[in-house]
């Protein structure tokens, strides 16, 4: 899923230039986007090869509790003797799964809902968009806290709830683009020639919203990563999935952590990782946005 998504990002960035060589693509997408893309692909790499990269099973008690960093344990061990570096490496998987999963879910909903609202219009449009407005007006974190407290969060529950909350922003953008495309003469002509709706959607509408889909994917993924980290930090994540947020929570639970140097290898690395992952997605998003700006502005 991930690979497909990243390839998509790359393709869209590359799109206006055809099959240009990589150097050309990088110089044309701008430095920041390139940095973001490289960073993100780095995380993807780590997530895929986690079993190879991590020296230990993150759940195994591979050392004594609270060891300092050493050659055996690059970032030391936690309070029960698990290798922090391995936890960090495997944590990448969870953040990426949640980020990309929730991003895909939100964008899928956004395409279906925004597309239907824009394409069919009328009362359906009104109802769907008001629903979106309402969701936008709701405070998301308390909402997630409530839901997670009630059902007890697993990774997939979290993906689904985040997706359910996050579709409206992208749906709005997609809706207005679909509306705009629908006004175009060639689309009306396609109808006139007797093509069915599915054909029109696939052939004429989809290509127009593809870049928006990628943009929505990137931005919602970034926000999902942040939310997951936050929820895990609050103790509302999946206790079985040891994500970066959860690592920080455990670290902070150790009394007096901040008074020693220990936070340097226990607390700081997951925090930096979360920041970098979100940052990488934002940077790609910024690059896409500046490319799509005329399109986004038109709404």
């Amino acid at each position, binding site marked *: 899923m991930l690979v497909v998504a990243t390839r998509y990002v790359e393709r869209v960035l590359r799109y206006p230039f055809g099959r240009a060589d990589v150097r050309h693509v990088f110089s044309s997408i701008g430095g920041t986007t390139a940095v973001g893309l490289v960073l993100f692909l780095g995380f993807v790499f780590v997530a895929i090869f986690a079993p190879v990269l991590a020296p230990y099973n993150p759940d195994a008690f591979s050392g004594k509790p609270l060891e300092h960093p050493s050659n055996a344990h690059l970032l030391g061990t936690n309070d029960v003797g698990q290798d922090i570096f391995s936890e960090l490496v495997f944590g990448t998987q969870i953040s990426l799964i949640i980020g990309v999963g929730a991003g895909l879910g939100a964008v899928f909903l956004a395409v279906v809902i925004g597309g239907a609202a824009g394409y069919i219009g009328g009362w359906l449009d009104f109802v769907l968009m008001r629903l979106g407005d309402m969701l936008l007006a709701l405070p998301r974190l308390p909402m997630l806290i409530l839901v997670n407290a009630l059902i*007890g969060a697993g990774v997939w529950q979290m993906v689904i709830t985040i997706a359910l909350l996050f579709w409206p922003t992208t749906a709005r953008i997609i809706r207005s683009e679909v509306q705009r495309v629908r006004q175009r003469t060639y689309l009306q002509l396609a109808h006139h020639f007797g093509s069915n709706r599915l054909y029109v959607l696939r052939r004429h509408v989809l290509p127009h919203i593809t870049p928006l889909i990628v943009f929505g994917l990137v931005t919602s993924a970034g926000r999902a990563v942040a939310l997951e980290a936050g929820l895990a930090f*609050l103790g509302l994540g999946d206790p079985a999935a040891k994500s970066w947020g959860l690592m920080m929570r455990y670290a902070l639970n150790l009394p007096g952590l901040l008074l020693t140097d220990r936070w340097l290898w226990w607390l700081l690395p997951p*925090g930096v990782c979360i920041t970098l992952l979100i940052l990488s997605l*934002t940077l790609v998003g910024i690059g896409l946005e500046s490319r799509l700006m005329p399109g986004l502005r038109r709404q």
Partner: protein
Amino acid sequence: MKQRLILYLMTLWAVLTLNFLLPRMLPGDPLQALLDPQSSTYVFDPATRAALEADYGLDRSLLEQYAGYLVGVFTADLGHSIRLNQPVIDLIRSHLPWTLLLTGSALALASLVGIVIGTEAAWRHRSMWDTSLVTVSVILSNAPVFFTGMVFLIVFGVWLGWLPLSGGRTPFADYSSLLAEMRDYGSHLLLPLVTLTLSLLGGKFLLVRNSMLGVLQEDFMLVARAKGLPAGQLKRRHGLRNAILPFVHHLASHAGFAITGALFIETLFAYPGIGQLIFDSVVVRDYPVIQGVFLVVSLMVLSANLLADWLSYQLDPRLREA
């Protein structure tokens, strides 16, 4: 404007209904579990259990429960905390002012600073200042607020020891004067405030800067300059005045961010606001409190929405027409 009002009323109703339905509809029947001796969340204290049974009235029909719930909400009766066996409304009442103080001041500070430096950065587009400010704000606004908070806590509280590590005031302090009291409150507020402000600042700065950049491209800015207006007037009277419109429009979502951020920061700094309340309640699945906090925060965000809409409407003559 009227349309927006209707939307907010409907949203309010949706929030209320969701708050009612969620615990009753979700799989696992979390409310029943509270009263089920077999479950892990069983409430042992008989007095609390009795209060819960009365609050939720689970033996009545759903409609009756709903009516009772709505009446409860409008009479400020939000049930009882499982953890403390106190009325939820009292708990909220004692915690909310702290949160309001924190979010309000952070929001105001971040807005003020964001507007000033956003305007200046756009005015000096592509200068070194502009570029570095943009870089810093992109990074700052992407770091999770609990992480930045931690770093501040370590730097200012632990390393430098300038500021208290936690709490909203010194416990059991006896203030010799009002000034001393305010100093104590202020020094406790400072770290959470700075953290929250900084985490909000990036977004606000970028928003103002980008919308200002857009405005500076407008024809009327060229005309204003051609009219021989001095730079200050150009920047503020025409530039900022227009650039502020999207900012105001997004005020509501910023308020949402601010409250979300505050929830984390309070947990981190053990600041006695509703963030703390919710954190403590989550650990023991104190549903009534979580629900109450959800309601109150929703209400706050909705009011912020309303305020933002009203402000936009006041500031932009084009909206008044529609």
